[in-house]
């Protein structure tokens, strides 16, 4: 069983060139930030390293950090420019009984994250959901299409903080 700072040390010594940081201030759990384009390689390491054996991806979630510039539109609504979208990975090792949380942040204007579907199969639908709700593109995902919203939904990504619902969908009025 490893503590978060031991896991951080292992990661740092194996990926010396990558900017890997830990935020220990979060009240719930320490969170390790890693670069979005390297998460697949880091995932393989976390899964296969004898001391870590993170065989289970418990959850993968998208988050809209809403930390960009907020612009008021003519109709009083707000849109957000710049800033980041993030993906959080909650890992668990069923044999060694330890846990860790990873985070990657990517630019809101072109949100691209490497897929971890090849590392943990669980990630397949979770990444599709994060794509569906936040528009985060998972590079090298085998089937990145919408999962909950209609396949032909073209009105944007509903869980983004500046999302606006369309007036109509296929002739049906959407607002109350």
């Amino acid at each position, binding site marked *: 069983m490893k503590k978060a700072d031991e896991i951080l040390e292992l990661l740092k010594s194996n990926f010396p060139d990558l900017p890997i940081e830990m935020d220990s201030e979060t009240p719930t759990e320490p969170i390790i930030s890693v670069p979005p384009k390297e998460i697949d390689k880091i995932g393989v390491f976390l899964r296969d390293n004898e001391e870590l054996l993170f065989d289970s991806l418990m959850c993968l979630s998208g988050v809209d950090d809403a930390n960009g510039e907020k612009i008021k539109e003519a109709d009083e609504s707000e849109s957000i420019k710049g800033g980041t979208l993030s993906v959080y990975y909650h890992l668990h090792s069923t044999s060694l009984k330890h846990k860790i949380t990873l985070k990657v942040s990517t630019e809101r204007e072109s949100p691209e994250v490497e897929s971890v579907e090849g590392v943990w199969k669980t990630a397949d639908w979770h990444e599709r959901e994060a794509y569906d709700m936040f528009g985060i593109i998972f590079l090298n995902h085998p089937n990145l299409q919408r999962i*909950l919203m209609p396949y032909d939904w073209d009105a944007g990504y*509903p869980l983004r903080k500046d*999302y606006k*619902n369309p007036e109509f969908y*296929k002739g*049906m*009025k*959407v*607002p*109350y």
Partner: protein
Amino acid sequence: MGLLDQEFSDSNIVITKAEDLLNWARLSSLWQLGFGLACCAIEMMATSASHYDFDRFGVIPRPSPRQSDIIIISGTVTLKMALRIKRLYEQMPDPKYIISMGSCSNCGGPYWEHGYHVLKGVDRVIPVDVYVPGCPPRPEALLEGLLKLQEKIRTESLSKKSA
């Protein structure tokens, strides 16, 4: 007035109007499209089971819209599902009836404001005969809704449709 409440004027001959006979036949065997959408569907299933016994009113679930007389919209109608509901409704033979069960299908329910994916009332795509309020309605409430629908069918006329 029910058909069989009338007196027999001769042994085993009942005289009635064709309209009353048709309405009586119709309202006594409302076959239901076996179709549930969300949490409300659990209450609908409970209504079908032995304790509340939908069957005593002639309501039995059918697996195909072609054999069904009524469709109970029991739950959250998402925009994605609304298109399918419309198609199912169009596949049912006339005369057909709709009970909208629960707040979701009446008006969007808990999703009325922030439900980006929910249709705010199934009556935006198909015509509803009876609305049953509740979240979810108890089986008694659904039975009441069915009795209201039967009342409505009882007063239907061949020359002009009352609905």
